[in-house]
């Protein structure tokens, strides 16, 4: 199992570096842009905070984008949230199905390793990749604050990155379950899942009838504006997210262990 885990890590290292440096780099660029935009930001922040549902949806009614904290939450929050969820979705959706799609399954499954152990090694690899992605991105954001000479709101930042990690694990878990069903990698379905979750959160913050069901979506508990404005984190949403993650992984074990593998 250890060998399979290490091989997967090695094979996905390039994707990890590309995604983490791209998303983290974009976040870093956003942070560095703050200084040049700081002067014009006050009037803009005032205007943005009075745009009704739009302001609510993007968190600009609770945080001022004229402050580094508000700017980070609204700008970098969107970049990291979307980028991270897409990375997690792609990692999850290809991890099992690629063996059949690339016809390497017969090689892998002819070893004295049970399917359950193979699933475990691959699931562990996804988790480690997402943790590394979060750490690299977080490191770049911290560098951004340091380069600007701004004080990092450490408590909120750690909470935000932690919640993003849980969210990415949830999305990866859902896509891992999808991966266990199909012999072809469903990239479109994975990216669609990620974007649908994001869209659901935006809609949920604008449409009053959906608001009470907002906790179903993984973006609800990891929303940067909520965290950086000090709003109470919904335990219900986190519990729901963790439950979905566990159920998705259990589903992947059951489904993949029971089905025929194509050659």
């Amino acid at each position, binding site marked *: 199992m250890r*060998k*399979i885990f290490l*091989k997967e890590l090695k*094979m996905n290292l390039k994707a990890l570096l590309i995604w983490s440096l791209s998303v983290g780099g974009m976040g870093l660029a956003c942070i560095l842009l703050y200084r040049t935009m700081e002067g014009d930001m006050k009037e803009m922040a005032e205007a943005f905070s009075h745009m009704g549902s739009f302001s609510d949806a993007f968190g600009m009614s609770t945080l001022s984008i004229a402050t580094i904290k508000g700017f980070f939450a609204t700008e970098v929050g969107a970049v990291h949230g979307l980028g991270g969820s897409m990375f997690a979705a792609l990692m999850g959706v290809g991890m099992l199905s690629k063996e059949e799609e*690339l*016809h*390497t*399954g*017969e*090689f892998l*499954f*002819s*070893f*004295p*390793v*049970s399917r359950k152990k193979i699933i475990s090694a691959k699931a562990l690899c996804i988790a480690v990749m997402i943790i590394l992605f979060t750490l690299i991105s977080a490191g770049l954001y911290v560098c951004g604050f340091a380069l600007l000479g701004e004080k990092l709101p450490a408590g909120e930042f750690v909470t935000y990155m932690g919640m993003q990690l849980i969210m990415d694990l949830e999305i990866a878990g859902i896509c891992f379950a999808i991966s266990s069903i199909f012999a072809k990698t469903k990239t479109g379905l994975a990216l669609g899942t990620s974007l649908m979750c994001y869209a659901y959160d935006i809609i949920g913050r604008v449409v009053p009838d959906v608001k009470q069901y907002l906790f179903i979506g993984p973006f609800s508990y990891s929303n940067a504006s909520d965290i950086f404005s000090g709003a109470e984190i919904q335990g219900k949403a986190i519990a729901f997210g963790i439950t979905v993650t566990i159920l998705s992984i259990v589903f992947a074990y059951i489904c993949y262990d*029971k*089905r*025929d*593998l194509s*050659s």
Partner: protein
Amino acid sequence: MNNVIEIEHLTKSYGKNRGIIDVSLKVKAGDIFGFLGPNGAGKSTTIRSMMGFLKTDSGSIRILGMDSVNDHEKIMANIGYMPSEAWFYDSMKVSEVIAYAADIRGLDCREEAEKLCERLKVNTNKKIRELSYGNKKKVSIVCAMQHKPKLFIFDEPTGGLDPLMQRSFFELITEYVDKGATCLLSTHVLSEVNKYCRSAAIMREGRLTMLDSPDIDDDEFLKFYEDTEEEA
């Protein structure tokens, strides 16, 4: 233990499509067993069921005296398998694939792998993506043999190999079998069965018929194919 493979009344279907029907088969220790049959007859389905890639509908498979479902890992530790199409991770080098196949079994097979690579003229420095179909097959042979398993299962092993490599391949099989291994190989090539196999069976339309002897002539052999084509 006399029988290395014992298959009893194995049936596997793919939804409404036929796979194999009530297949029973015994392969004795030390045998080189030829598994003949036209395309789509069910040879690969039988082999893939033995390997645990397919979940069967009914029947049982015992390999090396162990149940193929409950003792899957133990069985796999003693099998050298070569699929009909050899696929590996493209980004890896040949040497990495061979080392990976040994590592995952927790064995140090360097000496045997080196010997096999020399015999089969495998260039271990190349990347998998640079290899031809035949050269990938040779890597597959090394991966299947380097851990000196008790049972070899080969699905159409010689396709893509040049005549010289085909001869080396069968020489290696004979050597391992002489040392106590058993081999089951599926093939379309009658001459391979006549020359190397000690017993044989033929599959047609998902059903298996044991042959009295592997020494069958071309006409008798082709009758199985002709009948299948006529029925189709």
